[in-house]
C-alpha cells in the first residue's frame, strides 16, 4: 500500500535529489489511511477571503477531522496559507482583509463576535515556514504562551510545562542542559521543533503548519515528520506543503487548491492514487505547478 502511495510523487518531476534523500532516510511513518478518522473538528462553509479588492479564496467548503493530519496542497499563490490563516483568524492582523462564510470549530462559528481571536489562537496553534523563535532563551520561548494565558501559577508548574512541551516536540534531550541559552542559537531544525514546542505548550486543540519543513534539510525534515505523526494522536493537524512525498507520508486527508478554489478533497491515498479531477492528477504528477 505504501509503495502505491509513493509511486506518484516518485515518478513526478517534483521529486528532486533532496526529496529522494528524504524518502530513503525517512522513518517508516507513512500514512495510515486505514486508521479511523476522528470526528469533524473544523468545518469551513463557503469561505471567501478578500485582500482589499482582490479575492484570494472563493467559496471554500472543507471539513477537517480531529486527530488527523490534513494536508493542503496546490501551486504557489493558490490560497493555501490564506485558508490556513482563516482558521486562527490571523488574517485579522493583516489590514484590509475581509473574510466571509462560516468557519465552525466544534460546531461554533469562530468569526462570531462572541469569540475573542486572542483566546481562539490559544486553541489553534500555528507553526510558520521559517522558524521564528523569539530572541529569548529556549525556556522563555516555550514559557511564552503559558505566561500570557496564565497557565502556571508557580515556577515548578512552569518548569513542568516547559519540560513536557519540549519532550513532546522531541527536543528535550538536545536542549535539556542549555535551557537558558538563546533559542536563536539552535539549528534550523531544532528551532522549528522549538516553535512547535512553543505552540503545544498552551495545550491547543488544533495545530496549523505552513510549510514547516521548507527551510530544513532532509534529516531535520524527517524528524519533524516523525513528530507530526506522533502529535496526530492528540491534536488536529493541518499542514501546508509543497512536497507531494511529504503530503503522502504524513497526512491522512488531502485537499487540493487551485486558483483560490478547493478542487478536490479526500483520503490522501485516494487523492494520490485515484484523483477524480484531471487538474489534481496533473499537479501531483508534476505536469504543472
Amino acid at each position, binding site marked *: 500500500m505504501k509503495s502505491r502511495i509513493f509511486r506518484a510523487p516518485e515518478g513526478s518531476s517534483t521529486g528532486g535529489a533532496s526529496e529522494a534523500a528524504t524518502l530513503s532516510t525517512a522513518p517508516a511513518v507513512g500514512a495510515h489511511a486505514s486508521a479511523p478518522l476522528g470526528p469533524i473538528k473544523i468545518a469551513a462553509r463557503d469561505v471567501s477571503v478578500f485582500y482589499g479588492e482582490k479575492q484570494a479564496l472563493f467559496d471554500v467548503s472543507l471539513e477537517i477531522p480531529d486527530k488527523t493530519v490534513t494536508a493542503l496542497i496546490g501551486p504557489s499563490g493558490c490560497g493555501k496559507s490564506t485558508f490556513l490563516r482563516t482558521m*486562527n483568524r*490571523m488574517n485579522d*492582523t493583516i*489590514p484590509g482583509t475581509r473574510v466571509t462564510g462560516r468557519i465552525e470549530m466544534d460546531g461554533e462559528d469562530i468569526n462570531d463576535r462572541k469569540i475573542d481571536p*486572542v*483566546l*481562539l*489562537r*490559544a486553541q489553534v*496553534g*500555528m507553526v*510558520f515556514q*521559517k522558524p*521564528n*523563535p*523569539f*530572541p*529569548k532563551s529556549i525556556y522563555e520561548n516555550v514559557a*511564552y*504562551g503559558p505566561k*500570557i*494565558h496564565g497557565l502556571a501559577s508557580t515556577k515548578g508548574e512552569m518548569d513542568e510545562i516547559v519540560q513536557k512541551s519540549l519532550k513532546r516536540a522531541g527536543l528535550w534531550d538536545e536542549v535539556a542542559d542549555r535551557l537558558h541559552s538563546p533559542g536563536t542559537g539552535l539549528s534550523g531544525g531544532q528551532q522549528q521543533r522549538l*516553535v512547535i514546542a*512553543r*505552540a503545544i505548550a*498552551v495545550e491547543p486543540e488544533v495545530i496549523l503548519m505552513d510549510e514547516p519543513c521548507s527551510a530544513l534539510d532532509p534529516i531535520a525534515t524527517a524528524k519533524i515528520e516523525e513528530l507530526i505523526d506522533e502529535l496526530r494522536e492528540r491534536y488536529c493537524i493541518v499542514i501546508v506543503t509543497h512536497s507531494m512525498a511529504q503530503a503522502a507520508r504524513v497526512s491522512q486527508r488531502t485537499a487540493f487548491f487551485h486558483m483560490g478554489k478547493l478542487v478536490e478533497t479526500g483520503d490522501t491515498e485516494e487523492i494520490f492514487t485515484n484523483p477524480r479531477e484531471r487538474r489534481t492528477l496533473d499537479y501531483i504528477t508534476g505536469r504543472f505547478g
Partner: protein
Amino acid sequence: MIWIFLLLLIAFAVLAYVAGRALAVRRSRGAKSHSRPGQHGLYALSWVGAPALAMLIAASVFSTSIEQQMMRAGAPDSVAQLEPFRREAFFADARLVGAGQEARQIWPAPYAEDLPAEGRRAHRIAATLNWGGGVAALIAAVLGGLFVFTRIRPDLRARNKVEGWITGVLFACSAVAVLTTLGIIFSLVIDSLRFFSMVPITEFLFGTKWSPQIAIRADQVGSSGAFGAVPLFAGTFLIMAIAMAVAAPIGLFSAVYLSEYSGKKTRAMVKPALEVLAGVPTVVYGFFAALTVGPALRVFFNGIGDMLIGGPLNGLGIYLSLVQNQMALVAGAVMGIMLIPFVSSLSDDILNAVPQSLRDGSYAMGATKSETIKKVLLPAALPGVAGALLLAVSRAIGETMIVTMAAGLAAKLTLNPLETVTTVTVQIVTLLTGDQEFNSPKTLAAFGLGLTLFVVTLLLNIVAMRIVQAYREQYD
C-alpha cells in the same frame, strides 16, 4: 584676472578631451583599441586639468607668504626697522592703498610718507604673483598635454587609468573630511595642553568653582579666575537628564504607535511631520523656551509658591514664589521636545526592522498587541533603541542655543531643576565671544572644555554606533 586663467584652463581641458578622442580614433585605425575613444579623451583631459589645478592650488596657498617675504625684502629702512606688528599693519595699509582704497590707520610717523610708493610696490607684487600663478598653471597644462598626447596609442589602457583618476578624486574628497577632523582634534589638543599648563588638570576636572573672569589690570577686584569644571558638567548632565526624561518616553511611545498601531494614512502624515520638526533650527526652540515656556513655568511655580506661603510649607512657598524665568527645567524640557522627532524616527526604523515573523509568532500564540510589543518587540529592539537614545544623549550634550537662551549663565553646582545652571557648550560660547586675549587661561579654557566635550560625545557615539550595528547584524 584669475577668471581669465580659469576660463583658459577650462578651454584647454575641453580641447584636450576632443583632441585626445580624435587622436585615439586616428591612431587606432585598423588596429583594435583597448579602450574606447572617449576614455582616451578623458585620460588626456585629466593630464591637462590635474597638473594645472594642482599648480593653481599651490599658487594660492603659497602666494600670501611669498608676497609677505617680497614686501619685507624690498621695504625701505624706515619701515624695515619697525616692530613686527606695526610693520605688518603698515603693509596691510600699503596693500589697500595699492588696490586704490583708503588706508585704515592714521600714520603720524615719519615713515607715513612711504605709503604711496609702498602701495605701488604692493600692487606690482600682487600682479606679478597673480600672473605668475596663472602662467605656471597654463605651462603645467601644456606640459601635461604634450606628455599625454605622446602616449595615446591603441594599446594604452586608458579605461583603467581614467578609473584610477576617478578613484583618486573620490579619495581626495573623503580625505579632506577626515583630515579636517584630524586637524580640529589636533588644534583642540594643542590649545588644551597650553591651558592645562596654566591650570592644573586636576583643578579643571575636579574643582567645584567656575569663575573664568581674570583680572586684566591688577586693581580689578573679585576676579581671580577659578576653573573647576564640575558645575558645568553637572549643569550639562542635569539638562541632558531632563531632556531625556521628556524625549525618551514620548519619542519611544510615539515610535511604537507609528510602527504598530497607526494605519497607513496616519503614518504617511505623521512621519513626515515629525521629520520636519527635526529640521526646525534650535534657535527657534530657544526663543520658544525663553519667551513662552520660561515665563509660563515661572508664573505656575510662583502661583504655587504664593499658595504655600504661610502654611506648613512656608519655606518652600517662599522659594517657589521667587523662581525666575531661566531655569534648567525650561531648557531641558524644550530640548526634550526638540529631541522627540529624533528619537521617534530612529526607534521607528528599529522597530520596523524587527521581522514580521516575530509578530506573527506572538499573535499566533494568542498574545494581544500590547503583550506582543512589551514581551517580544521591545526586548528584540532594545539594544537598537538604546543606541538611538545614546545618540540623542550626545546631541543633548552638544546642544547650545536652547541652553544659552533659557537656562542662564550662572555656574551653580546644583541638581535642582528650578535653578539657573549653565553648560559646557554655553561656557565655550561666552568664553570666546566678545573681546579676548588669546593667551589668557580664560580663552584657553574654552579649548579644555571643547576637548572634554569632544571626548565624551565621541565615546558616546562609538558605543551607540556599536550597539546599533550589532543589532542590525542580528537579523541579517
